[in-house]
Protein backbone atom coordinates (compact mmCIF):
# COMPACT_ATOMS: atom_id res chain seq x y z
CA UNK A 1 0.00 0.00 0.00
CA UNK A 2 1.53 3.32 -0.93
CA UNK A 3 1.22 6.57 0.90
CA UNK A 4 -1.46 7.94 -1.38
CA UNK A 5 -3.62 4.91 -0.83
CA UNK A 6 -3.17 5.15 2.88
CA UNK A 7 -4.37 8.73 2.68
CA UNK A 8 -7.41 7.66 0.69
CA UNK A 9 -8.31 5.07 3.25
CA UNK A 10 -7.93 7.60 6.04
CA UNK A 11 -10.10 10.13 4.24
CA UNK A 12 -12.74 7.53 3.56
CA UNK A 13 -12.86 6.50 7.19
CA UNK A 14 -13.16 10.11 8.29
CA UNK A 15 -16.02 10.68 5.89
CA UNK A 16 -17.78 7.60 7.17
CA UNK A 17 -17.34 8.74 10.74
CA UNK A 18 -18.64 12.23 10.06
CA UNK A 19 -21.69 10.81 8.29
CA UNK A 20 -22.59 8.54 11.19
CA UNK A 21 -25.90 9.49 12.81
CA UNK A 22 -25.98 10.10 16.53
CA UNK A 23 -28.03 6.97 17.14
CA UNK A 24 -25.59 4.84 15.17
CA UNK A 25 -22.65 6.47 16.91
CA UNK A 26 -24.17 5.70 20.31
CA UNK A 27 -24.80 2.08 19.36
CA UNK A 28 -21.27 1.62 18.05
CA UNK A 29 -19.73 3.48 20.99
CA UNK A 30 -21.52 1.06 23.31
CA UNK A 31 -19.51 -1.63 21.51
CA UNK A 32 -16.24 0.27 21.92
CA UNK A 33 -15.90 1.68 18.42
CA UNK A 34 -13.22 4.40 18.33
CA UNK A 35 -14.78 6.28 15.41
CA UNK A 36 -18.11 6.39 17.20
CA UNK A 37 -16.51 7.88 20.30
CA UNK A 38 -14.96 10.59 18.19
CA UNK A 39 -18.24 11.25 16.37
CA UNK A 40 -20.07 11.76 19.66
CA UNK A 41 -17.30 14.01 20.90
CA UNK A 42 -17.38 16.12 17.73
CA UNK A 43 -21.16 16.42 17.92
CA UNK A 44 -21.35 17.62 21.50
CA UNK A 45 -17.98 18.94 22.66
CA UNK A 46 -18.74 22.56 21.69
CA UNK A 47 -21.83 22.73 23.85
CA UNK A 48 -20.17 20.95 26.74
CA UNK A 49 -17.05 23.10 26.56
CA UNK A 50 -19.13 26.29 26.41
CA UNK A 51 -21.05 25.15 29.47
CA UNK A 52 -17.86 24.33 31.40
CA UNK A 53 -16.24 27.59 30.39
CA UNK A 54 -19.18 29.64 31.60
CA UNK A 55 -19.47 27.70 34.81
CA UNK A 56 -15.82 28.03 35.83
CA UNK A 57 -14.67 31.07 33.82
CA UNK A 58 -11.26 29.52 33.16
CA UNK A 59 -10.14 27.86 29.93
CA UNK A 60 -7.67 25.40 31.47
CA UNK A 61 -10.23 24.19 33.99
CA UNK A 62 -12.92 24.10 31.31
CA UNK A 63 -10.73 21.85 29.16
CA UNK A 64 -10.14 19.48 32.05
CA UNK A 65 -13.82 19.42 32.88
CA UNK A 66 -14.81 18.80 29.26
CA UNK A 67 -12.45 15.85 29.15
CA UNK A 68 -13.78 14.56 32.47
CA UNK A 69 -17.36 14.90 31.31
CA UNK A 70 -16.76 12.90 28.13
CA UNK A 71 -14.70 10.34 29.99
CA UNK A 72 -17.59 9.80 32.39
CA UNK A 73 -19.96 9.68 29.46
CA UNK A 74 -17.98 7.01 27.64
CA UNK A 75 -17.58 5.01 30.83
CA UNK A 76 -21.34 5.01 31.28
CA UNK A 77 -22.48 4.95 27.68
CA UNK A 78 -23.27 1.26 27.93
CA UNK A 79 -26.04 2.12 30.38
CA UNK A 80 -27.72 4.62 28.08
CA UNK A 81 -31.03 3.12 27.02
CA UNK A 82 -32.51 6.08 25.18
CA UNK A 83 -35.23 6.93 27.70
CA UNK A 84 -34.15 10.58 27.55
CA UNK A 85 -32.52 12.58 24.82
CA UNK A 86 -28.84 11.79 24.61
CA UNK A 87 -27.89 15.48 24.63
CA UNK A 88 -29.93 16.02 27.80
CA UNK A 89 -28.25 13.06 29.44
CA UNK A 90 -24.81 14.29 28.44
CA UNK A 91 -25.59 17.84 29.50
CA UNK A 92 -26.73 16.78 32.92
CA UNK A 93 -23.68 14.61 33.29
CA UNK A 94 -21.43 17.53 32.34
CA UNK A 95 -23.14 19.78 34.85
CA UNK A 96 -22.64 17.14 37.54
CA UNK A 97 -18.97 16.84 36.69
CA UNK A 98 -18.52 20.60 36.96
CA UNK A 99 -20.42 20.84 40.22
CA UNK A 100 -18.57 17.89 41.73
CA UNK A 101 -15.29 19.48 40.81
CA UNK A 102 -16.30 22.83 42.25
CA UNK A 103 -17.52 21.24 45.46
CA UNK A 104 -14.08 19.77 46.00
CA UNK A 105 -12.52 23.19 45.82
CA UNK A 106 -12.51 25.41 48.86
CA UNK A 107 -14.61 28.42 48.06
CA UNK A 108 -15.28 30.17 51.35
CA UNK A 109 -16.71 33.27 49.74
CA UNK A 110 -19.29 31.25 47.86
CA UNK A 111 -20.19 28.37 50.11
CA UNK A 112 -23.85 27.57 49.81
CA UNK A 113 -24.54 28.05 53.50
CA UNK A 114 -22.96 31.46 53.63
CA UNK A 115 -24.27 32.97 50.46
CA UNK A 116 -27.80 31.66 50.63
CA UNK A 117 -28.70 32.39 54.18
CA UNK A 118 -31.88 34.46 53.93
CA UNK A 119 -31.19 36.01 57.33
CA UNK A 120 -27.82 37.28 56.25
CA UNK A 121 -28.52 40.86 55.31
CA UNK A 122 -24.95 41.55 54.37
CA UNK A 123 -24.80 38.85 51.71
CA UNK A 124 -25.53 39.77 48.15
CA UNK A 125 -25.82 43.09 46.44
CA UNK A 126 -28.50 45.50 47.59
CA UNK A 127 -30.16 48.38 45.85
CA UNK A 128 -29.08 51.74 47.17
CA UNK A 129 -31.69 54.38 47.93
CA UNK A 130 -31.40 57.22 45.48
CA UNK A 131 -28.82 55.43 43.35
CA UNK A 132 -29.26 56.38 39.71
CA UNK A 133 -30.61 53.49 37.65
CA UNK A 134 -29.23 53.12 34.15
CA UNK A 135 -31.55 51.12 31.97
CA UNK A 136 -29.64 48.17 30.60
CA UNK A 137 -32.18 47.20 28.00
CA UNK A 138 -30.78 48.02 24.57
CA UNK A 139 -27.45 49.10 26.07
CA UNK A 140 -25.79 45.82 26.98
CA UNK A 141 -24.35 43.40 24.52
CA UNK A 142 -23.27 39.81 24.91
CA UNK A 143 -19.61 40.68 25.33
CA UNK A 144 -20.33 42.89 28.32
CA UNK A 145 -22.61 40.27 29.79
CA UNK A 146 -20.03 37.52 29.32
CA UNK A 147 -17.41 39.62 31.09
CA UNK A 148 -19.81 40.40 33.90
CA UNK A 149 -20.67 36.71 34.33
CA UNK A 150 -16.97 35.93 34.61
CA UNK A 151 -16.72 38.43 37.45
CA UNK A 152 -19.51 36.85 39.45
CA UNK A 153 -18.56 34.90 42.56
CA UNK A 154 -18.56 31.20 41.59
CA UNK A 155 -21.67 30.35 43.62
CA UNK A 156 -23.75 33.03 41.97
CA UNK A 157 -22.29 32.22 38.58
CA UNK A 158 -23.21 28.54 38.75
CA UNK A 159 -26.86 29.18 39.51
CA UNK A 160 -27.10 32.00 36.99
CA UNK A 161 -25.51 29.93 34.21
CA UNK A 162 -27.71 26.95 34.98
CA UNK A 163 -30.94 28.97 35.14
CA UNK A 164 -30.64 31.92 32.81
CA UNK A 165 -28.07 30.61 30.32
CA UNK A 166 -28.80 26.89 30.22
CA UNK A 167 -32.49 27.05 31.01
CA UNK A 168 -32.68 24.76 34.03
CA UNK A 169 -35.64 25.14 36.40
CA UNK A 170 -35.10 25.91 40.07
CA UNK A 171 -36.20 22.44 41.15
CA UNK A 172 -33.64 20.91 38.77
CA UNK A 173 -30.91 23.21 40.03
CA UNK A 174 -31.83 22.36 43.60
CA UNK A 175 -31.41 18.68 42.73
CA UNK A 176 -28.14 19.22 40.92
CA UNK A 177 -26.64 21.45 43.58
CA UNK A 178 -28.12 19.64 46.53
CA UNK A 179 -29.79 22.74 47.93
CA UNK A 180 -33.37 23.95 48.42
CA UNK A 181 -35.42 25.61 45.70
CA UNK A 182 -35.50 28.73 47.86
CA UNK A 183 -31.72 28.78 47.94
CA UNK A 184 -31.57 28.47 44.19
CA UNK A 185 -33.97 31.40 43.77
CA UNK A 186 -32.09 33.50 46.26
CA UNK A 187 -28.76 32.80 44.57
CA UNK A 188 -30.18 33.66 41.18
CA UNK A 189 -31.67 36.90 42.43
CA UNK A 190 -28.36 37.96 43.96
CA UNK A 191 -26.51 36.98 40.83
CA UNK A 192 -28.83 39.13 38.72
CA UNK A 193 -28.48 42.04 41.12
CA UNK A 194 -24.68 41.76 41.00
CA UNK A 195 -24.71 41.49 37.23
CA UNK A 196 -26.85 44.57 37.03
CA UNK A 197 -24.33 46.47 39.13
CA UNK A 198 -21.43 45.27 37.03
CA UNK A 199 -23.17 46.15 33.78
CA UNK A 200 -24.14 49.57 35.05
CA UNK A 201 -20.52 50.17 36.01
CA UNK A 202 -19.53 49.15 32.51
CA UNK A 203 -22.02 51.54 30.96
CA UNK A 204 -20.83 54.39 33.16
CA UNK A 205 -17.23 53.61 32.24
CA UNK A 206 -18.10 53.59 28.55
CA UNK A 207 -19.96 56.88 28.92
CA UNK A 208 -16.92 58.42 30.63
CA UNK A 209 -14.63 57.22 27.85
CA UNK A 210 -16.94 58.70 25.25
CA UNK A 211 -17.00 62.03 27.03
CA UNK A 212 -13.21 62.05 27.27
CA UNK A 213 -12.90 61.13 23.63
CA UNK A 214 -15.31 63.93 22.71
CA UNK A 215 -13.30 66.37 24.83
CA UNK A 216 -10.07 65.24 23.21
CA UNK A 217 -11.41 65.65 19.71
CA UNK A 218 -12.98 69.06 20.57
CA UNK A 219 -9.83 70.63 22.01
Amino acid at each position, binding site marked *: *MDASRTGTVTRTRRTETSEMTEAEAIRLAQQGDAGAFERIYRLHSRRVYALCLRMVGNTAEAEDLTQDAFLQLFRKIGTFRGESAFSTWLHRLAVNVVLMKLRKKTLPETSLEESTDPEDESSGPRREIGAP*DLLLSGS*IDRVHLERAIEQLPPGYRQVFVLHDVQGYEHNEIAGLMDCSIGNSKSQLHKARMRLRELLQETLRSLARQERQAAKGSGS
Partner: protein
Amino acid sequence: MNMQCEQFEQILEQRDEGALPKPALAHLETCEACRALSADFGAIHDMALELGHDEIAPPERVWISLRNQLEAERLILEPQAAPRSASRASSGWWSVLQHPAVAGAFLGLVLAAASTVGYLSNFAQTSVHSQLAFQQESSPVPAADSVFKEEVLTVGSDSIPGLQRQDTAVTASIRRNMQIVDNFIAICEKSVREQPDNQMAREYLYGAYQQKAELLATAMNRSMPGGLQ
Protein backbone atom coordinates in the same frame (compact mmCIF):
# COMPACT_ATOMS: atom_id res chain seq x y z
CA MET B 1 -36.16 52.13 49.04
CA ASN B 2 -39.51 52.01 50.83
CA MET B 3 -41.27 48.93 52.15
CA GLN B 4 -43.20 48.40 48.99
CA CYS B 5 -39.99 48.20 46.96
CA GLU B 6 -38.57 45.57 49.32
CA GLN B 7 -41.72 43.53 48.97
CA PHE B 8 -41.57 43.88 45.22
CA GLU B 9 -37.98 42.66 45.22
CA GLN B 10 -38.98 39.63 47.29
CA ILE B 11 -41.71 38.84 44.81
CA LEU B 12 -39.21 39.20 42.00
CA GLU B 13 -36.85 36.81 43.78
CA GLN B 14 -39.38 34.14 44.61
CA ARG B 15 -41.44 34.07 41.45
CA ASP B 16 -40.85 31.57 38.67
CA GLU B 17 -41.25 32.53 35.05
CA GLY B 18 -44.54 34.15 34.19
CA ALA B 19 -46.50 37.30 34.86
CA LEU B 20 -46.12 39.26 38.07
CA PRO B 21 -49.04 39.24 40.52
CA LYS B 22 -51.42 42.19 40.39
CA PRO B 23 -50.10 43.99 43.50
CA ALA B 24 -46.59 43.89 42.03
CA LEU B 25 -47.83 45.23 38.71
CA ALA B 26 -49.62 48.01 40.54
CA HIS B 27 -46.39 48.89 42.33
CA LEU B 28 -44.49 48.96 39.07
CA GLU B 29 -46.84 51.63 37.72
CA THR B 30 -45.91 53.97 40.53
CA CYS B 31 -42.22 53.13 41.09
CA GLU B 32 -39.68 54.04 38.45
CA ALA B 33 -36.79 52.29 40.28
CA CYS B 34 -38.57 48.96 40.43
CA ARG B 35 -39.67 49.34 36.84
CA ALA B 36 -36.03 49.80 35.86
CA LEU B 37 -34.98 46.83 37.99
CA SER B 38 -37.60 44.60 36.42
CA ALA B 39 -36.67 45.73 32.91
CA ASP B 40 -32.97 45.17 33.58
CA PHE B 41 -33.60 41.68 34.89
CA GLY B 42 -35.56 40.95 31.74
CA ALA B 43 -32.74 42.29 29.54
CA ILE B 44 -30.14 40.23 31.38
CA HIS B 45 -32.30 37.11 31.16
CA ASP B 46 -32.92 37.54 27.43
CA MET B 47 -29.26 38.13 26.66
CA ALA B 48 -28.25 35.18 28.83
CA LEU B 49 -30.60 32.90 26.92
CA GLU B 50 -28.79 33.87 23.72
CA LEU B 51 -25.49 32.89 25.33
CA GLY B 52 -26.99 29.49 26.03
CA HIS B 53 -27.05 28.74 22.32
CA ASP B 54 -23.35 29.47 21.93
CA GLU B 55 -20.99 26.71 20.95
CA ILE B 56 -17.30 27.06 21.64
CA ALA B 57 -14.89 24.56 20.18
CA PRO B 58 -12.41 23.18 22.72
CA PRO B 59 -8.76 22.90 21.65
CA GLU B 60 -7.89 19.71 19.78
CA ARG B 61 -5.62 18.63 22.63
CA VAL B 62 -8.73 17.85 24.68
CA TRP B 63 -9.75 15.12 22.24
CA ILE B 64 -6.19 13.78 21.93
CA SER B 65 -5.88 13.55 25.68
CA LEU B 66 -9.35 12.03 26.00
CA ARG B 67 -8.62 9.44 23.34
CA ASN B 68 -5.39 8.44 25.06
CA GLN B 69 -7.31 8.04 28.29
CA LEU B 70 -9.98 5.95 26.57
CA GLU B 71 -7.28 3.72 25.15
CA ALA B 72 -5.54 3.46 28.50
CA GLU B 73 -8.81 2.39 30.13
CA ARG B 74 -9.49 0.04 27.21
CA LEU B 75 -12.87 1.66 26.62
CA ILE B 76 -11.95 1.69 22.95
CA LEU B 77 -11.96 -1.94 22.03
CA GLU B 78 -9.77 -3.74 19.54
CA PRO B 79 -10.94 -3.11 15.97
CA GLN B 80 -11.69 -6.78 15.35
CA ALA B 81 -13.65 -7.02 18.61
CA ALA B 82 -15.84 -4.03 17.87
CA PRO B 83 -18.58 -4.99 15.39
CA ARG B 84 -18.73 -2.63 12.46
CA SER B 85 -21.15 -1.99 9.71
CA ALA B 86 -20.49 -3.66 6.37
CA SER B 87 -19.21 -0.50 4.78
CA ARG B 88 -16.80 0.17 7.59
CA ALA B 89 -15.50 -3.37 7.50
CA SER B 90 -14.10 -2.63 4.07
CA SER B 91 -11.11 -0.87 5.60
CA GLY B 92 -9.80 -4.45 5.81
CA TRP B 93 -6.31 -5.55 6.75
CA TRP B 94 -5.03 -2.01 6.93
CA SER B 95 -7.14 -1.21 9.97
CA VAL B 96 -6.50 -4.60 11.52
CA LEU B 97 -2.76 -4.03 11.16
CA GLN B 98 -3.01 -0.93 13.26
CA HIS B 99 -3.45 -3.00 16.36
CA PRO B 100 -0.14 -3.92 18.00
CA ALA B 101 -0.89 -7.55 18.77
CA VAL B 102 -2.15 -8.29 15.28
CA ALA B 103 0.62 -6.30 13.69
CA GLY B 104 3.22 -8.10 15.76
CA ALA B 105 1.78 -11.47 14.86
CA PHE B 106 1.63 -10.46 11.24
CA LEU B 107 5.24 -9.40 11.14
CA GLY B 108 6.16 -12.56 12.97
CA LEU B 109 4.50 -14.54 10.20
CA VAL B 110 6.42 -12.54 7.65
CA LEU B 111 9.67 -13.40 9.39
CA ALA B 112 8.68 -17.02 9.67
CA ALA B 113 7.90 -17.08 5.97
CA ALA B 114 11.22 -15.54 5.25
CA SER B 115 13.02 -18.09 7.40
CA THR B 116 11.50 -20.96 5.43
CA VAL B 117 13.01 -19.75 2.25
CA GLY B 118 15.85 -22.00 1.23
CA TYR B 119 18.21 -19.28 0.35
CA LEU B 120 17.92 -15.69 -0.43
CA SER B 121 19.39 -13.82 -3.22
CA ASN B 122 19.23 -10.81 -5.38
CA PHE B 123 19.03 -8.12 -2.82
CA ALA B 124 19.89 -5.38 -5.19
CA GLN B 125 21.93 -2.63 -3.71
CA THR B 126 19.65 -0.15 -5.44
CA SER B 127 16.68 -1.50 -3.56
CA VAL B 128 18.46 -1.07 -0.25
CA HIS B 129 19.48 2.42 -1.19
CA SER B 130 15.99 3.35 -2.22
CA GLN B 131 14.74 2.15 1.15
CA LEU B 132 17.41 4.20 2.86
CA ALA B 133 16.43 7.28 0.89
CA PHE B 134 12.80 6.81 1.86
CA GLN B 135 13.66 6.44 5.51
CA GLN B 136 15.94 9.47 5.38
CA GLU B 137 13.22 11.67 3.96
CA SER B 138 10.35 10.74 6.16
CA SER B 139 11.51 9.22 9.39
CA PRO B 140 10.26 11.12 12.43
CA VAL B 141 12.36 9.02 14.78
CA PRO B 142 16.01 9.78 14.05
CA ALA B 143 17.48 7.47 16.69
CA ALA B 144 15.65 4.41 15.44
CA ASP B 145 16.35 5.46 11.89
CA SER B 146 20.10 5.54 12.40
CA VAL B 147 20.06 2.14 14.05
CA PHE B 148 18.04 0.83 11.16
CA LYS B 149 20.49 2.24 8.61
CA GLU B 150 23.41 0.59 10.38
CA GLU B 151 21.64 -2.71 10.18
CA VAL B 152 20.71 -2.27 6.56
CA LEU B 153 24.18 -1.19 5.49
CA THR B 154 25.50 -4.53 6.63
CA VAL B 155 23.37 -6.33 4.10
CA GLY B 156 24.44 -4.45 1.00
CA SER B 157 25.19 -6.58 -2.02
CA ASP B 158 28.91 -5.89 -1.70
CA SER B 159 29.07 -7.59 1.68
CA ILE B 160 26.85 -10.58 1.01
CA PRO B 161 28.40 -13.44 -0.87
CA GLY B 162 25.99 -15.06 -3.25
CA LEU B 163 23.68 -12.13 -3.20
CA GLN B 164 23.87 -11.75 -6.91
CA ARG B 165 22.58 -15.24 -7.50
CA GLN B 166 19.28 -15.25 -9.24
CA ASP B 167 16.19 -17.06 -8.08
CA THR B 168 13.15 -15.35 -9.44
CA ALA B 169 10.51 -17.01 -7.24
CA VAL B 170 12.37 -16.48 -3.99
CA THR B 171 13.30 -12.95 -4.95
CA ALA B 172 9.69 -12.12 -5.70
CA SER B 173 8.61 -13.63 -2.39
CA ILE B 174 11.21 -11.68 -0.49
CA ARG B 175 10.29 -8.49 -2.23
CA ARG B 176 6.65 -9.02 -1.35
CA ASN B 177 7.49 -9.63 2.28
CA MET B 178 9.76 -6.64 2.39
CA GLN B 179 7.04 -4.54 0.83
CA ILE B 180 4.63 -5.57 3.56
CA VAL B 181 7.11 -4.65 6.26
CA ASP B 182 7.82 -1.35 4.50
CA ASN B 183 4.12 -0.61 4.31
CA PHE B 184 3.79 -1.25 7.99
CA ILE B 185 6.69 1.11 8.66
CA ALA B 186 5.00 3.75 6.50
CA ILE B 187 1.75 3.36 8.45
CA CYS B 188 3.59 3.64 11.75
CA GLU B 189 5.46 6.71 10.59
CA LYS B 190 2.23 8.31 9.49
CA SER B 191 0.69 7.63 12.88
CA VAL B 192 3.68 9.13 14.66
CA ARG B 193 3.55 12.20 12.44
CA GLU B 194 -0.16 12.66 13.11
CA GLN B 195 0.07 11.93 16.83
CA PRO B 196 3.59 12.80 18.00
CA ASP B 197 2.59 12.22 21.62
CA ASN B 198 1.27 8.73 20.94
CA GLN B 199 3.86 6.58 22.69
CA MET B 200 2.27 3.39 21.41
CA ALA B 201 2.67 4.47 17.80
CA ARG B 202 6.34 5.20 18.44
CA GLU B 203 6.83 1.79 19.97
CA TYR B 204 5.26 0.15 16.93
CA LEU B 205 7.59 2.11 14.69
CA TYR B 206 10.67 1.06 16.63
CA GLY B 207 9.41 -2.49 16.50
CA ALA B 208 8.85 -2.27 12.76
CA TYR B 209 12.37 -0.97 12.16
CA GLN B 210 13.72 -3.79 14.26
CA GLN B 211 11.68 -6.35 12.37
CA LYS B 212 12.99 -5.10 9.07
CA ALA B 213 16.58 -5.09 10.29
CA GLU B 214 16.16 -8.65 11.54
CA LEU B 215 14.60 -9.69 8.26
CA LEU B 216 17.49 -8.27 6.31
CA ALA B 217 20.01 -9.81 8.70
CA THR B 218 18.34 -13.19 8.28
CA ALA B 219 18.45 -12.76 4.54
CA MET B 220 22.14 -12.00 4.71
CA ASN B 221 22.92 -15.04 6.87
CA ARG B 222 21.01 -17.38 4.61
CA SER B 223 22.74 -16.09 1.55
CA MET B 224 26.19 -16.94 2.92
CA PRO B 225 27.86 -20.27 2.06
CA GLY B 226 27.26 -22.61 4.98
CA GLY B 227 24.43 -20.48 6.29
CA LEU B 228 21.30 -21.86 7.83
CA GLN B 229 19.49 -22.15 4.54
